[in-house]
């Protein structure tokens, strides 16, 4: 049986091409672009149905649907139940109790329970925690594993070169604790509830609300009950509006509301664009004989080449079971579109210095998340009328230490301390305008957070040299270890991560080994372990500004890097049903909310928006 349609359309294209050749000298560009647009409009199926791209105002299916929202007032609304948001909430309530003032603090979090979307290594520096709760031990904070051994290596394909961690180097972990950050955040949530914070997990902040004068009025939670094609279902209900005197945005790395706020208030005009990395992580139960609780291992080098920033971590936890938390970080300024961070991670586990630890063990968790690498150069303006940014959202991560939790917590606490006097002041007019609290940015600049970030500001950018990794390490050794970051210059980053990819034809595909099912695994079984799920019948939350760009640009020039950098297999290029050409398939249900696609898409066409609350990964103590 001949697939007649396929042959006839090929014939059609042949004839059209002949026509173009004949008249090429007439107006060649015009024909080719017209030709291309005609072909693509025929073969691009509709992918994006979200109302942020296709407005509901002009959509006939939404005529007559009740769009009024229920509204409620609070004193402070916090978006995001991570270390920053919870520390801010706790500090606000501590101050309120101290000064015997009433304060309504509401926190919304898109995960179904506090801690379910939290993922980090993590070696926690207890400085901020001790400021927040000096009695954290008595309160039962899950800090059970003080660091006992600290190992740093450079890996080659078969060998390991140990690097001494001298006191004063940023990656020294003496005095820190290996924690399961999800459990730590869950504990912070319990402390917050005890203090009277209203926590609402399972409800995502989907929209920022504005007063007439342009200041932030609060947020609105997501609508529910919209079908995959964008039409309202029977169970459709509008989200709710939470109004506040001031709103804190603690969405974590590359938050989607923060992205809007940067544009709205021009917060990034005097800083460098943020640069990122992706971190993938697994938790394993290993053979007891291999377990060394309190041991911290970091490595750089293999399998990445010297010009791709990244490295690994492996931490032995001490919580009863012989657990290790291990993972791999790849800087998102990598240039080869054939690079797959997930497969680099799986490949690294086979290194002779890593595999023996995992042999005989079993993997119990997997997840991934983007993290900030921009440091002080990329911090935007932090306050605007009606709101402010806290935590990894503006980005206070100390990159060489790979720690951002302590600075995120401190930023939340400073925000609370700056807001409190203003929010409880008498005679406040919050009906028509949001509070502006520039004191927060001042306090941050005068705190240890700023000193710390300033001293390490040149380490990450120092990798942008011919010697890559080795140049960076030499720079760190000289200027950080000896001079403590006091050099008078500040190095710049290389620009947006999305602009760093080279076209596919200039790069060589990477041959990755097949997963062996014992130490390395395939993508889909890993995604299943993250417990991620979303209501299937909702518009995909990975929205495309232009549905035809993926095939026309990303696939054509960069060979579709999104099918490689997404750690959850959301993006797939599949052949069209008609046989010729490809289309992008978005498996939105797999999404683990890492935000890498929004960051690394070379066409910056993907806009991640928040799906229905309660969806996403179900991390347990990650």
């Amino acid at each position, binding site marked *: 049986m001949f697939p007649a349609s396929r042959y006839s359309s090929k014939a059609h294209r042949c004839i059209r091409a002949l026509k173009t050749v004949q008249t090429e000298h007439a107006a060649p560009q015009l024909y080719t672009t017209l030709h291309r647009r005609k072909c693509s409009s025929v073969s691009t199926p509709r992918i994006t149905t979200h109302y942020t791209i296709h407005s509901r105002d002009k959509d006939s299916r939404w005529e007559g649907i009740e769009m009024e929202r*229920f509204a*409620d007032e609070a004193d402070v609304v916090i978006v995001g139940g991570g270390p920053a948001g919870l520390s801010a909430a706790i500090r606000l309530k501590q101050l309120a109790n101290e000064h015997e003032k009433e304060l309504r603090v509401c926190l*919304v979090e898109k995960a*179904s*329970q506090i*801690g*379910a979307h939290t993922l980090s290594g993590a070696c926690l520096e207890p400085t901020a925690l001790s400021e927040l709760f000096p009695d954290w031990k008595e309160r039962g904070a899950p800090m059970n594993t003080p660091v006992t051994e600290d190992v740093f290596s450079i890996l080659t394909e078969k060998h390991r070169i140990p690097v001494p961690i001298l006191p004063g180097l940023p990656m020294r972990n003496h005095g820190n604790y290996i924690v399961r950050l*999800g*459990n730590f955040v*869950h504990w912070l949530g319990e402390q917050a509830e005890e203090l009277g914070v209203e926590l*609402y997990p399972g*409800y995502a902040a989907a929209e920022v609300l504005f007063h007439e004068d342009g200041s932030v009025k609060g947020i609105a*939670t997501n609508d*529910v*009950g919209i079908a995959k094609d964008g039409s309202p279902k*029977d*169970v459709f*209900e509008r*989200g*709710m509006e939470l109004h506040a005197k001031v709103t804190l945005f603690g969405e974590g790395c590359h938050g989607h509301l923060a992205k809007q706020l940067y544009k709205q208030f021009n917060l990034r005009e005097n800083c460098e664009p943020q640069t990122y990395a992706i971190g993938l992580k697994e938790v394993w*139960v290993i053979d007891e004989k291999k377990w060394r609780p309190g041991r911290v291992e970091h490595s750089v080098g293999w399998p990445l080449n010297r010009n791709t920033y990244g490295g690994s971590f492996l931490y032995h936890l001490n919580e009863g*079971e012989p657990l290790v938390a291990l993972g791999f970080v790849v800087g998102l300024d990598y240039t080869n579109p054939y690079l797959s961070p997930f497969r680099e991670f799986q490949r690294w586990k086979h290194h002779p210095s890593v595999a023996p630890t995992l042999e005989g063990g079993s993997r*119990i968790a997997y997840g991934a998340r983007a993290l900030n690498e921009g440091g002080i150069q990329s911090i935007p303006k932090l306050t605007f009328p009606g709101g402010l940014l806290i935590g990894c959202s503006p980005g206070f991560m100390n990159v060489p230490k790979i720690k951002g939790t302590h600075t995120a917590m401190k930023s939340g606490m400073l925000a609370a301390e700056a807001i409190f006097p203003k929010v409880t002041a008498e005679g406040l007019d919050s009906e028509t305008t949001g509070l502006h609290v520039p004191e927060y940015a001042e306090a941050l600049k005068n705190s240890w957070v700023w000193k710390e970030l300033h001293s390490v500001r040149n380490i990450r950018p120092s990798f942008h040299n011919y010697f890559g990794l080795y140049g960076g390490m030499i720079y760190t050794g000289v200027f950080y270890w000896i001079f403590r970051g006091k050099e008078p210059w500040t190095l710049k980053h290389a620009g947006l991560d999305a602009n760093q990819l080279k076209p596919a034809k200039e790069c060589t595909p990477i041959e990755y080994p097949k997963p062996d099912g014992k130490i390395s695994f395939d993508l889909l079984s890993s995604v*299943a*372990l993250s*417990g*991620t*799920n979303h209501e299937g019948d909702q518009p995909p939350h990975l929205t495309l500004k232009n549905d035809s760009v993926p095939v026309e640009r990303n696939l054509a020039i960069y060979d579709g890097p999104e099918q490689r950098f997404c750690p959850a297999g959301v993006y797939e290029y599949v052949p069209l049903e008609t046989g010729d050409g490809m289309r992008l398939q978005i498996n939105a249900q797999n999404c683990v909310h890492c935000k890498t696609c929004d960051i690394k898409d070379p066409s910056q066409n993907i806009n991640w928006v928040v799906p229905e609350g309660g969806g996403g990964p*179900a991390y*347990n*103590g990650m």
Partner: protein
Amino acid sequence: MSGRVLVGVKRVIDYAVKIRVKPDKSSVVTDGVKHSMNPFCEIAVEEAVKMKEKKLIKEVVAVSCGPQQAQETIRTALAMGADRGIHVEVTGKDYETLGPLQISKIMAALAKKEEAQLIILGKQAIDDDCNQTGQMTAALLDWPQGTFASEVSLEGDKIKVVREVDGGLETIKINIPAVITADLRLNTPRYATLPNIMKAKKKKIANMKPADLGVDITSRLEVLRVDEPPQRQAGVKVETVEDLVSKLKEAGLV
């Protein structure tokens, strides 16, 4: 019908989460794992709330048995429209051995105490797949039962239930009071939206222990061991029919 309806809601591990057997093989890991309301219980709550909205019944009472966290599940039911909740506190070892027989004894005692006219439950829980609680409750109360309901309608002092059975659909008429268990196609549960969750904080949840109801929850079952299902073995591809026959002969199957 004067109308108080009891709805049972169970807190179970979320269906999308990968479960893991504890190293001592006694049970499944539940610490920190994402839990949610059993999907069939959501359908049961939705049906009860729909009846109340149609003014066929007066009050919906959500019941859950378990540790402190069961209150979250009751709160979700309240946010969907239930009027008040009852939390029967069962913790520790007792909770691990809590099964359909004890739950039905508790539900029966509560039905008598609350003078309920209807009990709606999910047809089964997704963690144990027992499909027993509804039937046992009806037997203990000597009430009629309409299980696997895909359609429920009140007709005077009787209830018409369309049941999904292996052979198709069976329609029965039963007297009130009765026990109904909800099947998948009964309705589409509504979302528990934030304003309703906030309102639900003001609704009452009564606290009690099984002993307060005169119920003995000692289990007559003992779980010996919990194992993961065996790993699926890879298949073998053969080239010719002769190969296939010889392999079957080798395995002693032919």
